[in-house]
């Protein structure tokens, strides 16, 4: 095996999750009645910008900010029962298009988002893991003020999937459908969530993942009740059932190992590259992808500099002004996409860049996706 490229390679297999589900509960959990969730959100939205999975009239679910008016009607379309929405909550924390600054006659006006309090309610486990991943990325080396300002005051409330969509494989990546409850509470949850809700029929069992989560319960204690032993038992059963409902199983650990040991043949990449129609969708939609482009626009001496989502599958992504392009061939870009997630992310951070949400397959017009590749390379 070739020497690994960073000095302290994390050992395989992925260490992301040791504790067993339902164990290690630190704070005595409480419950919230399902029919009080709306009121909780309405009350909390006095203080927080609340973002919830919301099913529009077209039945498409997406994270949407609770409007200032008619909240109750709006929440009739709250969607906590469906699987993860196709479009990840990344749009909330890292929008597709963001202005960096405006300028006029040479004077620059920064456009840094204000650090509003954001309550992301109804996240799925995979998305919590992804946010944790992206948080870490934007803090490492240089701090990205645009991202950090948007996200520094956020509270992540996970509602575990009951019936996960067919494309996900989070049990294989060990990123869901529920996350283990940490044994001690840090300022930010080690698993990423601040609160985790388990559907136990007429109510949710609420597990606490951080001090911030605990505080939230304290601030809105009217909505919460103490959980009974039975509730806790029920929640364990629910978690198990949810876990079994994820039917797509892949050998993720072996895939990571094969990637880290450079065992993936070029032919596999070439096959994918040939079929890919370069829509960029799989990367745009990936909850852990963060690549962006920076561009200017102006008219006369007024204009702005902005950044927007970019993706490494594009030929121009690495083409230099001289025309030289180190990744001119299609398969190289394909290999970049997969290796970044399954090898380099893992080797540099210990977290893989894939959280098993299955979105890349769901959005691909030609039916390519992470799970398919992994099946191929672990055959």
């Amino acid at each position, binding site marked *: 095996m070739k020497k690994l490229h960073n000095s302290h390679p994390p050992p395989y297999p992925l260490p992301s999750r040791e504790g067993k589900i339902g164990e290690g509960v630190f704070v005595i959990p409480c419950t919230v009645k399902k029919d009080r969730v709306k009121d909780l959100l309405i009350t909390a939205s006095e203080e927080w910008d609340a973002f919830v999975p919301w099913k529009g009239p*077209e039945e498409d679910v997406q994270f949407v900010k609770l409007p200032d008016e008619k909240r109750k009607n709006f929440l009739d379309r709250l969607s906590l029962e469906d699987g993860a929405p*196709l479009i990840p909550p990344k749009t909330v924390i890292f929008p*597709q298009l963001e202005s960096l600054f405006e300028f006029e006659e040479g004077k620059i006006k920064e456009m840094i988002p204000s650090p509003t309090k954001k309550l992301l309610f109804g996240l799925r486990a995979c998305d919590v893991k992804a946010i944790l991943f992206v948080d870490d990325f934007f803090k490492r080396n240089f701090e990205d003020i645009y991202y950090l300002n948007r996200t520094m005051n956020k509270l992540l409330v996970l509602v575990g999937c009951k019936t996960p969509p067919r494309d996900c494989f989070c049990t294989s990546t060990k990123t869901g459908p529920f996350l283990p409850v940490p044994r001690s509470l840090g300022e930010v949850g080690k698993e990423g969530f601040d609160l985790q809700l388990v559907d136990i029929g007429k109510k949710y069992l609420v597990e606490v993942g951080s001090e911030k989560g605990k505080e939230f319960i304290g601030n809105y204690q009217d909505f919460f009740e103490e959980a009974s032993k039975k509730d806790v038992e029920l929640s364990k059963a629910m978690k198990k059932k949810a876990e079994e409902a994820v039917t797509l199983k892949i050998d993720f650990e072996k895939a990571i190992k094969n990637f880290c040991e450079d065992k993936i043949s070029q032919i596999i990449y070439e096959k994918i590259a040939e079929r890919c129609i370069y829509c960029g969708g799989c990367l745009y939609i990936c909850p852990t992808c963060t690549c962006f482009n920076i561009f200017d626009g102006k008219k006369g001496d007024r204009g702005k500099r902005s950044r927007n989502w970019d993706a490494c599958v594009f030929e121009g992504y690495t083409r230099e002004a001289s025309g030289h392009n180190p990744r001119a061939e299609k398969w190289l870009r394909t290999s970049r996409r997969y290796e970044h997630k399954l090898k380099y992310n893992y080797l540099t951070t210990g977290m893989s860049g894939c959280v098993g949400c299955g979105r890349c397959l769901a*959005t691909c017009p030609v*039916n390519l996706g992470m799970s398919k590749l992994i099946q191929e390379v672990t055959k």
Partner: protein
Amino acid sequence: MRILTTCIYCGCGCGLYLESESGKIVGSYPSRNHPVSKGALCVKGWNAYEFINSPDRLTVPLVKSSDNFKESGWNEALNLVSEKLLQIKEEYGPDSLAFLSSAKTTNEENFLMMKLARAVFKTNNIDHCARLCHASTVVGLAATFGSGAMTNSINEFEKADLFLVTGSDTTEQHPLIGSRIINAVVDRGAELIVVDPRRIELTKYANIFMQQDNGTDVAWINGMMNVIIKERLYDQKYVEERTENFAELKEMVKDYPPEKVEKITKIPKNLLIQAARLYAQTKKAMILYSMGITQHTTGTDNVKSLANLAMLTGHVGLPSTGVNPLRGQNNVQGACDLGALPNVFSGYQKVGDKAVRDKFERAWKVESLPADPGLTVTEIFKKAKEGKIKGLYIMGENPALSDPDLTQVRKALEKLEFLVIQDIFMSETAEYADVVLPAASFAEKDGTFTNTERRVQRIRKAIEPKGKSKPDWQILSEIGKRCGYSGIEYQDPSQIMDEIASLTPIYGGISYERLEPFGLQWPCPAKEHPGTPYLHKDKFAKGKGSFIPCPYVAPDELPDEEYNFALSTGRVYWHWHTGTMSRRTSLLDREVPGAYVEMHPADAEQLKIKEGEKVEVSSRRGEIELAVKLTKKVKEGSLFIPFHVREAAANVLTNPAIDPIAKIPEYKICAAKVEKI
């Protein structure tokens, strides 16, 4: 805030959401449940948000005074436009005016444009860019089937067993249809026959690839029919019961044995025979075509021949079959449907038909609507150059880059007495204008688009119009009012749709409520009608389908000693037409930053030209300079130039020779030469 709308780029008509934050568009992404997008978009859809914010958007009306544009108020600009147009009408007669509508604007706006032209200015001189892409489809399919639209639906591609793709670079131009073909072939083992002079992406998946000489389509289609008839592979029952004129067709195609076809087209005869058998013997076989078929002097013949082929084998009127013209622009189908054509009102109701005119006169409360068909785009520019068209009103089109033989078009624009441009950007054409009216973009207004599969679907307002710009329908209505016509006032576009429905049988059952959430496919004649996924079920729209035999005629201009290359033009995946939107999208512009000409490496070697080298490509009409891209996609002796780039506008070279019936120009072949510089 998110709002569901319809993509502004191609005819697939994907459903996409626009995301807005504080009154600004900050993203676009697919709808999972939309029947076309199904959770996916192509790269243009994923980046459809950027150009809306472009600082170059037109935001105030501009009036030209002594060669310079001056900003003006709406009132002043609109008064000027209506006064000038009325004055020209008075002085030179209604037919000295012409109107170009737009396949980029909504159905409602196209309807208003034609209402304005016909009811207010009493001229049928109204047309739009469909003339340049699918006019031959409209004419050809109407003659054979009775309806000039795509017969089947996009989702039927998912169930078809064979695709005959010709003159459509589907993965580049209609990515979400292309992807369905790839999936069908790779995952389900469907058969694929590609007939194209270029080695397009889909040929990688083709069972049979026939690389015909550009412009010889009628010959190979007749050749296939020759084989099918000779081998008795045609659907005799279907032909007998549902079609007419078979004997004549049979007689004519006798002249096209595979040997002869091989000589004309360079398609090996065995391949042709194989393809003919495969197509005839597969039940669920769909024909798809696009501009490679239509943009020829024989465009109408090409279309009719494909229709003949499909009828002969009983491949029309059933799911996953049919003749499927893939319409280019997002709303080119709608612009045709709504009567932005010189010879028909909305719903293809003929202007020559007294009863139809009576109906419109009553509804619009006007008298003497003009009865003679008006001029087509190509004729409008010809007449403008001759000084016969004095005033031209162009909404959302850029003929100074998109029309053939640009030098002539630009001369015509200069000659006009009065030119009004209504657009979202200062286009190449706008520079010739007397008045430029700033229009709202698709994100800033309500309306409907009709996609290639006849799906009428909503676009929805996500943000306020930028600056002082206004939706096209409001501008048109304002002009109408100022010309003294009050029958053109609306509160919102849904009222226009109600008027459309009341006057247009194929849209008869359509209203905004019924279009929720993902639209309806016309014909939808009544309020309860569920829409029509595929046409000609049990019976052709015109009753019996007509075989119209077409003999082969060579293209207008072929390579010769001097101009020794066959030049074709078209689009690339990353860009859209004249690039007004896609070149203002940083990612798309980065992917294909400049103009290039595709050339076969063998030709390049002979001319000692290297990859990336600058050359001059010239035809009898003009010359442009651009870089060479070596690729085996093009045949030896052929060239291909994308027409998006203003710095090297391909249409300086193209031949304005037109199809005699559909008046579509021959973009797909002309003679050109290449010189090193």
